[in-house]
């Protein structure tokens, strides 16, 4: 049988009645073992300095995201212009429409393609794309974590467990 707590008295300061005595036996729901370590991990174990550093890093990442996205767009436009200016676009269009000709003399086709391709612009676009992808993935990984009750290991969350 549950031990009775000290019953609360009535609303007007009267002595506890039978209902008060009965509810003094009420057992409180026990919080899950992970809860306190999880709360500590999200409060005291996150120092203000660390929060400020994380905020600055996050701002820098968003700036990098904007810059790399702009670079991707710029490089894409420049590559398009270069493909058009060097005649590579016409060459590719021709090969697309008459693929048999390219298949008959692949060496010739490949050499002409390599010669006309604006490689610098292509490399610049690929580099900008990689940079944009890296910043996007980093931003996504740095999002605030959602509550992880399932599989949460309190002993790894804090060393402060008494």
């Amino acid at each position, binding site marked *: 049988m549950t031990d009775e707590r000290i019953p609360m008295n009535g609303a007007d300061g009267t002595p506890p009645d039978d209902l008060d005595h009965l509810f003094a036996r009420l057992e409180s729901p026990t919080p899950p073992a992970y809860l306190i370590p999880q709360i500590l991990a999200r409060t005291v174990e996150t120092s203000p300095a660390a929060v400020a550093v994380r905020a600055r890093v996050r701002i820098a990442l968003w700036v990098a995201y904007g810059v790399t996205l702009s670079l991707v767009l710029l490089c894409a436009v420049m590559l398009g212009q270069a493909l058009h200016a060097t005649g590579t676009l016409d060459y590719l269009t021709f090969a697309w429409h008459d693929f048999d000709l390219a298949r008959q003399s692949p060496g010739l086709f490949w050499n002409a393609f390599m010669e006309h391709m604006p490689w610098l612009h292509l490399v610049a676009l690929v580099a900008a794309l990689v940079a944009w992808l890296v910043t996007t993935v980093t931003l996504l990984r740095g999002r605030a974590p959602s509550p992880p009750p399932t599989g949460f290991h309190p002993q790894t969350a804090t*060393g402060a467990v008494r």
Partner: protein
Amino acid sequence: MLGGWRRRRGGAAPDLSTATDEALLVLAQGGNTAAFETLVRRYTQPLYAFATRILGSADDAADVAQHTFIQCYNALPRLRSDTALRPWFYRVARNRCLDLIRQRRTLPADLPRENEEELDALAMIADGGPSLESLAERHDLQRLLAEAIAGLPPKYREVVVLRYEGDLTFGEIAETLGIPENSAKTLFQRAKTMLRLALREWVREEV
């Protein structure tokens, strides 16, 4: 970080577990993480129990407790050092409970007997009935009590849980709910009438 603090303070640190809430608040505001940790350890269980009774969900109750302490931690610099922390914690927890109830878009059903005049009349009958002592020996007492609380309309349930589960004074209940102290007492008395009537049903079943 906490470990580092402990190493620095060595073994001669005061026992924070016996410190008052106000003292812990002042220490926590000064950057003492152990003081805040003591508050977390002191209030996690009561806040979790409160939220569980109000929401009926263990997962949501854990969310409420966590949210309350994160709110407190973020608000530390702005809190006045004489803030009564216990009602403050419960007020934040209650607001979070209300948010979660709104998100569910389903309010717990109210009992049909919420007419205040009718309740006052029923209180006369309920107070004169047989004692509830016989229920105390029932093996399913915990379930009966929990169901009786869960069956109360939300505004009465809050008062009962704060009083019986949180051991709050009526002044603290009033502060938590933002109502006058006399209203808190009236709500509690009416809630007791409802509880008594609900529990009497089980007493009658036993006889």
